């Protein structure tokens, strides 16, 4: 029995240590290669190089979330409150599957949008900010629907019935009483969706991001984005300055996603505390 204990112990410590070493090594590597440029290159240089990508990312992320949120929330409310058991299960399944679709396939969906508009309506739509926003919205829609369904599902029958037992109409109950109750859970779900939209590369690669587009000037023009910048410059950089930019961009993206994840978790914890009350 002692052998088993040793083997098992050795195994789990080996795994834990390996991953720890990997993470530490990565962080060390990242910091080592970005501290020097961060301290020595003037901020204005960094910004002028990365700014278009940062603004482009913000623009496309915000627009996709602006499209997907109301649509997703309404759909989630529809699924949870206005459908019966069997239909509801099927719809939840459909959106679960949509949520698992590889992002490159969603990029193809965006491409299909371009094709359909070109062939059916005749308008010569090209890959641009607008198409990317729509495609990213498609990407994150299932997550928002899922968050909404869960948020509403977690409202107990007793709470649902307070308004109804006083003669409040169904939609009034949903929008004036249940919706405010669901907001924290919804919000944390939306933040996760924001994080997802901000860092996805495959979708924007097929629908409108470009290498050198400058600041996003119009919805119907290509734009730059941070994840694509990292992808492109990782394989094509000409000198150490450009390389430093990639490291800094990577640091920025990591801070953004981990930050968003942290905020989402924080809101989640606050909800759990509230429920215990």
């Amino acid at each position, binding site marked *: 029995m002692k052998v088993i204990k040793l083997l098992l112990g050795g195994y789990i*410590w080996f*795994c834990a240590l390996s991953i720890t070493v990997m993470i530490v090594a990565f962080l060390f590597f990242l910091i080592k290669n970005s501290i020097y440029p961060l301290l020595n290159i003037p901020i204005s240089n960094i910004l002028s190089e990365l700014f278009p990508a940062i603004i482009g990312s913000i623009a496309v992320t915000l627009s996709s979330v602006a499209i997907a949120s109301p649509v997703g929330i309404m759909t989630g409310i*529809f699924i949870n409150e206005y459908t019966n058991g069997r239909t509801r299960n099927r719809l939840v399944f459909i959106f679960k599957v949509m949520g698992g679709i590889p992002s490159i396939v969603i990029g193809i969906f965006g491409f299909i949008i371009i094709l359909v508009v070109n062939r059916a309506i005749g308008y010569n739509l090209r890959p641009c900010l607008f198409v990317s926003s729509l495609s990213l919205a*498609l990407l994150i829609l299932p997550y928002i629907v899922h968050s909404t369904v869960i948020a509403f599902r977690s409202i107990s029958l007793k709470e649902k019935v307070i308004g109804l037992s006083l003669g409040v*109409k169904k939609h009034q109950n949903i929008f004036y009483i249940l919706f405010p109750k669901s907001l924290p859970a919804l919000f944390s779900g939306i933040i996760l969706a924001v*994080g997802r939209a901000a860092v996805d590369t*495959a979708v924007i690669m097929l629908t409108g991001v470009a290498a050198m587009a400058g600041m996003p000037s119009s919805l119907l023009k290509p734009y730059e984005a941070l994840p694509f910048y990292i992808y492109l410059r990782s394989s094509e950089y000409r000198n150490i300055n450009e390389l430093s930019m990639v490291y800094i961009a990577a640091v920025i993206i990591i801070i953004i996603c981990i930050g968003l994840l942290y905020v989402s978790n924080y809101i989640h914890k606050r909800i759990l505390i509230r429920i215990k009350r």
Partner: protein
Amino acid sequence: MTVKEKTVGQAIKTGGWIIVASTLMFPAMLIFLSLPLLNENSILQILSGEWDTENKLYGILPFIATSFFIASVSTLISFVFGFGISLFSYHYKKKIFGKILSKVIQYMTGVPTVVYGFAGIFILVPLVRKYTESSSGYCLLTIFLILAVLILPTIVLYINESFSLVNSKMLTAAQSLGATKEQLYLYILIPKSIRGIVVALILGFSRAISDTMIPLMLSGNALQFPESFYMSARSLTAHIAMVLPGEYDGIEFRVIFFIALLLMLIVLLYNIIINYLEKRSEGH
């Protein structure tokens, strides 16, 4: 404001169904756009041939093989380490380092694949170039390793959840009968979580096969059959990313839609399997 409940209800239902229909329109379009392929080249040819645009060969077998190859090997590697980490977190869940490890793994889920690709290029590729037979460092081995790290948090978090769902009464009962920790894990915890472990594997595999950036950035994307760890090869997802931005028409193009359809069907399949497995465990 006497808005009838029925009217609002019908408006919401109509809106809801419109959205669902619009969402389903896209997979439908994929099928529609892939249909011409059935006429010109038989599906069998596409699925089994090699890709060689000059010789009019549009087989995607190399890509399929590459995708499955890298997904399987990464999932395996990831599982070996992930399972150990889950056990570690479970065993040490009261100690501070156990908690920290769990937290760190949880936050790893936030890191996007581009960053993993980036880490791969700048850390791993030079190492692989130096210590193995690969001449450039951009080969399948690199992909296995980085992809394994990418899907690790997915696997760990799911197995953790399965562990936590194991009936604690059973565990305390066994403990009070004098079982050691190892016996607890080997004879109760793990057997009772088998379903969750299988689901974790499937989730990891599907995540690995769906990823685009890591195969794209780290493999060299050569048009050849993946025969060894040190070769360069192209996955289904990387192929889409490379062909699509150029705007052509014709068979080359339509094959892309077919590949997308294939990937979607794989996702559908694994969702059905996971749904089935999770339903079984709920009935427990």
